[in-house]
């Protein structure tokens, strides 16, 4: 039988790690040095969360895999992150759209996960929620400025959001893993996060003067390892050094 707690912790870690890796692709390429630093800071927060979640997943699994093993020696089909976080950075508008939607969702999630009956998950979420509150706030400020800025920034912000709407529904999907753990008070019911998420997104879009959220037919599958073509390319960059030199240490 599937170890549902392992899978749940793995999902949480994979979400954070994949987005952390994506954001670090901006290093040295952001529009200004200040934005470069601020995106790198968010990336480092996310990688830190991933270390904790994946470390815990490895302990729960009990097969001797630590966070590094799970991060660097797992093929793409075994990754359980949501599809949104693996989307390519695109321009700054698209990166901000992804960050705003994901961090708003993750903030709602960690607020509740901090109350989990699983002490370790609760502890990690309680630490991470402060970081994520900042990410969500920073991204929202940028959505407002880009949406309410120039004609070009507004167009790019709309394009960025349009890229990601199809991946929103997946964030609220339930399955056997969440059902089992919600019943035990360990996991947060994904569907229960929707009202908080939608209210926050609507408020920010309104302030930014942007069109309301209209979700197209969703694309799902990330939790089962059905990923877009982008994830494999990203993992190749992320994993090739540890896979080439498996015994290498700092």
């Amino acid at each position, binding site marked *: 039988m599937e170890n549902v707690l392992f899978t749940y912790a793995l999902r949480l870690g994979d979400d954070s790690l994949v987005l952390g890796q994506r954001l670090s692709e901006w290093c040295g390429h952001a529009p*200004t040095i*200040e*934005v470069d*630093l*601020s995106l790198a*800071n968010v990336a480092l927060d996310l990688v830190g969360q991933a270390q904790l979640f994946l470390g815990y997943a490895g302990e729960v699994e009990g097969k001797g895999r630590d966070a590094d093993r799970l991060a660097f020696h797992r093929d793409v089909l075994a990754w359980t992150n949501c599809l949104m976080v693996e989307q390519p950075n695109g321009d700054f508008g698209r990166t901000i759209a992804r960050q705003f939607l994901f961090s708003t969702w993750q903030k709602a999630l960690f607020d509740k996960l901090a109350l989990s009956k699983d002490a370790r998950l609760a502890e990690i979420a309680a630490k991470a929620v402060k970081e994520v509150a900042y990410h969500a706030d920073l991204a929202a*400020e*940028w959505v407002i*400025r880009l949406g309410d800025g120039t004609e070009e920034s507004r167009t790019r912000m709309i394009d960025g959001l349009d890229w990601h709407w199809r991946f929103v529904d997946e964030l609220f999907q339930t399955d056997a893993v969440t059902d089992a753990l919600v019943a035990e008070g360990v996991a947060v019911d994904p569907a229960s996060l929707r009202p908080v998420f939608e209210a926050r997104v609507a408020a920010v879009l309104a302030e930014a003067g942007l069109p309301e959220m209209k979700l197209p037919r969703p694309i799902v599958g990330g939790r089962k390892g059905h990923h877009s073509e982008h994830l494999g390319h990203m993992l190749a960059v992320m994993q090739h050094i540890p896979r080439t030199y498996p015994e290498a240490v700092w």
Partner: protein
Amino acid sequence: MKTDWPLWEVFVRARGGLSHRHAGSVHAPDATIALRHARDTYTRRMEGVSLWVVRSSDIAASDPEQAGPMFEPAETKIYRHPTFYELPDAVKHM
């Protein structure tokens, strides 16, 4: 892009009870983002518990050409340093 954003001076309070000290500057489109840039640039290593930003153009500065009349008269007034008193042992942190 960079030239569109005004410059902001950043002041960091290291911990409660100390005054804010100038740490450097950031570019940002407005005060809200300037605070976030200041946080991400100057408090990454736990340097502070409070931040101020102020538009660089709002600072009135003394004229370097006038440095003589401004500052040199103080040079001969060493009695303004309280170095001629003997401190009792009980007084700490002076």
